[in-house]
C-alpha cells in the first residue's frame, strides 16, 4: 500500500488539474457564446445577398458567371476546417473521419483531391496520410473579421476558376446546440443558381448593369459562406472543449473522492497498527515483569 504522503501528493495534483480544467471550461463557454452571436449577426448579410442573387437570376436571358459554371468533375477541392489546439474531445476526430469518408468516395472513382486546410490538426493529419494540400491556414483568431477570412475563399475561387478543380466543398462542424455538433460537408462552388423571382427582377434598375452587380455579389457571397462556416466551427470547437473539460473536472472530483477514502483507510490502518504495537509492547513488558517477579 502507498504511504500516506504519496496519496496526499496524488490528491493535490489531481485537484490542481481539476482547477485548470474548470478554468478552461469557463473560458470555452464564454468564447462559444460569442462565436455563436457572431455567426448569428452575419446571417442577415448572407440572407440579403441570397435575395439579391434571386433577383439577378430572374434577369431576361439569365446571367452567366465563372462561379456558376458546372463542369464534369475531374478533381475537387475541399476546405477542411479543424482546430489549432487539442483538448476538445472528439471535435477534430469527428470532422476528419467525415472528411476522409467523403474523400474516399471520390478517390475510388479516380477523382483528384486538392485540400485547403484551416487549422493545425487537419493539416497535420492530412500531411501524415500524404494528401495533397494546396494551401494551409493556421492561427485563425477567435471571431475573425471577413477581411482575415477572405484569402481562404480567394484561394478556393482561384482553384475553381483556373480549372484546377471542378467543384469545391467545405467540411466544417455545424453548431446545432451546446451538446450536439454535426460534421457537415457542403458544396461551395459552383454556386447553385437560385430559382428566379421574375416578378421582382423586372422592376429593378441595376447600376451599372446586372452582369457587373452579379460579378460583385458572387465572390462576396462565397467569402461569406466560408466566414460563416468558420464561425460555426469555432462555436462547435469551443462547446466541444467545454463539454470535454466539464467531464474532466467531474472525473477529477470522482478521483479525489476515491483517493480521499483510500487516504483515510491508510491513516486508520496506521493508527490501528500503532495501537497494536503499543498494546503488544505493554503486554510484553507486563509479561517480562511477571517473569522477573517470579524469579525473585
Amino acid at each position, binding site marked *: 500500500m502507498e504511504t500516506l504522503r504519496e496519496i496526499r501528493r496524488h490528491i493535490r495534483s489531481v485537484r490542481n488539474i481539476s482547477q485548470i480544467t474548470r478554468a478552461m471550461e469557463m473560458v470555452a463557454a464564454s468564447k462559444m457564446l460569442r462565436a455563436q452571436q457572431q455567426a448569428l449577426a452575419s446571417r442577415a448579410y448572407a440572407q*440579403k445577398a441570397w435575395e439579391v442573387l434571386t433577383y439577378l437570376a430572374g434577369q431576361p436571358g439569365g446571367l452567366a458567371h465563372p462561379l456558376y459554371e458546372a463542369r464534369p468533375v475531374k478533381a475537387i477541392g475541399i476546405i477542411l476546417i479543424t482546430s489549432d489546439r487539442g483538448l476538445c474531445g472528439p471535435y477534430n476526430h469527428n470532422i476528419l473521419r467525415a472528411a476522409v469518408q467523403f474523400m474516399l468516395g471520390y478517390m475510388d472513382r479516380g477523382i483528384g483531391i486538392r485540400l485547403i486546410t484551416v487549422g493545425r490538426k487537419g493539416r497535420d493529419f492530412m500531411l501524415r496520410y500524404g494528401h495533397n494540400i494546396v494551401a494551409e491556414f493556421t492561427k485563425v483568431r477567435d471571431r475573425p473579421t471577413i477581411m482575415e477570412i477572405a484569402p481562404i475563399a480567394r484561394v478556393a475561387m482561384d482553384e475553381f476558376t483556373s480549372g484546377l478543380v471542378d467543384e469545391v466543398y467545405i467540411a466544417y462542424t455545424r453548431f446545432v446546440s451546446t451538446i450536439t455538433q454535426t460534421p457537415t460537408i457542403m458544396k461551395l462552388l459552383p454556386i447553385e443558381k437560385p430559382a428566379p423571382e421574375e416578378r421582382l427582377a423586372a422592376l429593378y434598375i441595376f*447600376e451599372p448593369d446586372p452582369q457587373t452587380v452579379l460579378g460583385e455579389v458572387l465572390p462576396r457571397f462565397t467569402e461569406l459562406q466560408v466566414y460563416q462556416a468558420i464561425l460555426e466551427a469555432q462555436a462547435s470547437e469551443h462547446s466541444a472543449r467545454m463539454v470535454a473539460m466539464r467531464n474532466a473536472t467531474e472525473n477529477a472530483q470522482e478521483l479525489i473522492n476515491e483517493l480521499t477514502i483510500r487516504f483515510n483507510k491508510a491513516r486508520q490502518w496506521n493508527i490501528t497498527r500503532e495501537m497494536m504495537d503499543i498494546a503488544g509492547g505493554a503486554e510484553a513488558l507486563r509479561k517480562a515483569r511477571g517473569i522477573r517477579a517470579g524469579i525473585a
Partner: protein
Amino acid sequence: MPLRLEIVTGERLVFSDEVDMVIAPGVEGQLGILPKHAPLLTALSIGELRVKKGQEELSFAIGGGFMEVYKDKVIVLADTAERAEEIDIARAEEARRRALESLKERGRLSREEFAQAEARLRKAVTRIKVAQRYRRLQLPKFEEEEENV
C-alpha cells in the same frame, strides 16, 4: 414618409433607423435616395455615405458593397462600414502610410497586389476624410453649448 435605412456588414448590423435621405457613393457617381425611389440595385464604391434625418446629418465610411432600394427601404450591404465618430484617425493615418509605402514598390507588385494596395489607400483616405468632416461638424455645436452656460 421616411426611408428605412439598414447598413449591414458581414460581421454586424451597423445602423438601422428611419431617415429622410441617403446619399451613397455609387460606382457611377454619387446618388441621392429620397422616399418613393424606384427599385434599384447598385454596386457601391469606396467612399462616404451620408444620411440626413431632420436637422441631423450622419456620415459613414463605406469600403464598397451594394445598395438595394425597394419600397422605401434602403439596405446597404457593405464590405466595411464605420460611423464617423467610431473612426480612429491615428489608425487610419497609419493605414494610409502603409498603403503608400507598398505602392512605392510598384515595380515589384503584381497587378492584383497593386490594386489591393490602392484600395487600401482609398479606404484609409475616405476614413480620414469622413472622420475629419465629422470633427468639424461637431465643433460649432460644442461652442454653442459653451455660450449657453
